[in-house]
């Protein structure tokens, strides 16, 4: 059994290309200056379509997390830390926190992005404590 692997749409392609090159890319709006995640054809803040890709710092903090004890399928090794990350630039994203002591994991810890090769085509952004 295989993990759920993203099948990037043309719109999402630059994001996943960025991941393969070790860079977390966000869309940024040239009209209102705000970044957004996930990628869209319109800005979710102001409705403009003047979006361009900008590299994020890769830094963030854990908004919330759970230690998954019962995996969604056999492709995932429980326990693993599923988390919502508030990126330094503002947007929130789901990810996993790796290389962390699950017994001392807390909300609010600072993390930075890392990339894991999940297949020949896909590198997934995950986070580890700073």
């Amino acid at each position, binding site marked *: 059994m295989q*993990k*759920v*692997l*993203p*099948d*990037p*749409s043309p719109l*999402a392609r630059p994001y996943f290309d960025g991941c393969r090159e070790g860079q977390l890319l966000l869309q940024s709006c040239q009209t209102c200056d705000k970044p957004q*995640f*996930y990628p869209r054809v319109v800005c979710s803040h102001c409705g403009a379509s003047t979006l361009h890709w900008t590299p994020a710092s890769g830094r963030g903090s854990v*908004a*919330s*997390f*759970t*230690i*998954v*004890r*019962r*995996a*969604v*399928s056999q*492709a*995932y090794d429980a326990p*693993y830390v*599923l*988390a*919502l990350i508030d990126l330094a630039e503002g947007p*929130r*994203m*789901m*990810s*996993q926190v790796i290389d962390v002591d699950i017994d001392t994991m*807390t*909300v*609010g810890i600072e993390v930075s992005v890392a990339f894991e090769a*999940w297949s020949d085509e*896909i590198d*997934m952004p995950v986070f580890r404590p700073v």
Partner: protein
Amino acid sequence: MGLDDVVIVGMAETDLGVVTDRGPMELGVQATKLALDDAGLDLRAIDGLITCNSLVHPVMYHAEATAEYLGIEPRHCLSVGTGGGTTFTALRYAAAAIQTGMAHTVVVSMADSMRSFMTRERAMIVQASSGHPLYEQPYGPTVPAYYALIARAHMAEFGTTEEQFAEAMVSSREWSAMNPTAQYRERITVNDVMTSKPIADPLKMLDCSIVSDGGAAIVLTSRERAADLPHAPISILGYGEGHSYEHISQSKNLTTSAALRSGQLAYADAGLTARDIDIAQLYDCFSPALLIQLEDLGFCDKGEGGAFLQSGATRPGGSLPVNTHGGMLSHCHPGNPGAMFGLTEAIAQFRGLAGPRQQQDPQHILLHAQGGIMSSHATVILGRGV
């Protein structure tokens, strides 16, 4: 025609719990037939049919397929899909169809068979597939994990404890112990919840709803037509919805949900406040969902949901009986139709048929359901028939 000209005149539940000899379509059809019998109406009286699709046996055009199965040719068919919120969205659509003359007598019917017609492994994957396919699902979220993210955020912000979440199941079992149709009826303690199997920290097995088979249906018609029918009609006093995101990673506030807006709209529509509510039937898919609805619907202050549960307010004899049938934590949770049983229980409470669970002459019952991960909310306030 106004919303107060539409009333509920019939209801029924199928066999519930573990039902191995009939699948979702058969249960939905059975619920429809029984609800019509209860309303004193013939199958031909239906000119509108609203259903929700089955997760176990999805069909492309569900309401139409159900009508075909029943051998009826309604003027209006609709399959509604707002996850757990479907029940009350469907109820409002049914009322709207009657208000606007699209139909005169509408059945809302829902059933599924997650327990007996789907493996646990498959159910995990199907349910988790509500996550975003590119930006959430690859990380291996499960549905309990999504709700655990909410629970953990509530703990971090308000100091809510795992013991307080555990009170949700304790309260649920106090009610289900008095309900012969409930799937789980054994009273339990906070310690039983705390020592149950870890699923997705801080949630354990007994913070999670059960998995069931079953269906239910209700019948709506005009107040005018209801005058000739056997049961005192039940009024829809208020309705509201709230939608603030679909995917949990897009939530801007993990601890306050769009139940706040949904509830405010329903209260305003009914001209009532939380203080006027005699019974609340809430969407207890997971303990934190129940706790946050108690806050967002105004039954206690924000951040006080844990203390409110711990006070026993929601249990028999408490100030706000919640899920008097046992809810989805203990009574029946076949999938999307879960909130139907809060609705049939509310009708039973109004009719005085709830046996040992019966509350004295309830005037206003609030029902709330939500789909997604505290994503799409619908609130309805029902009033005693006159």
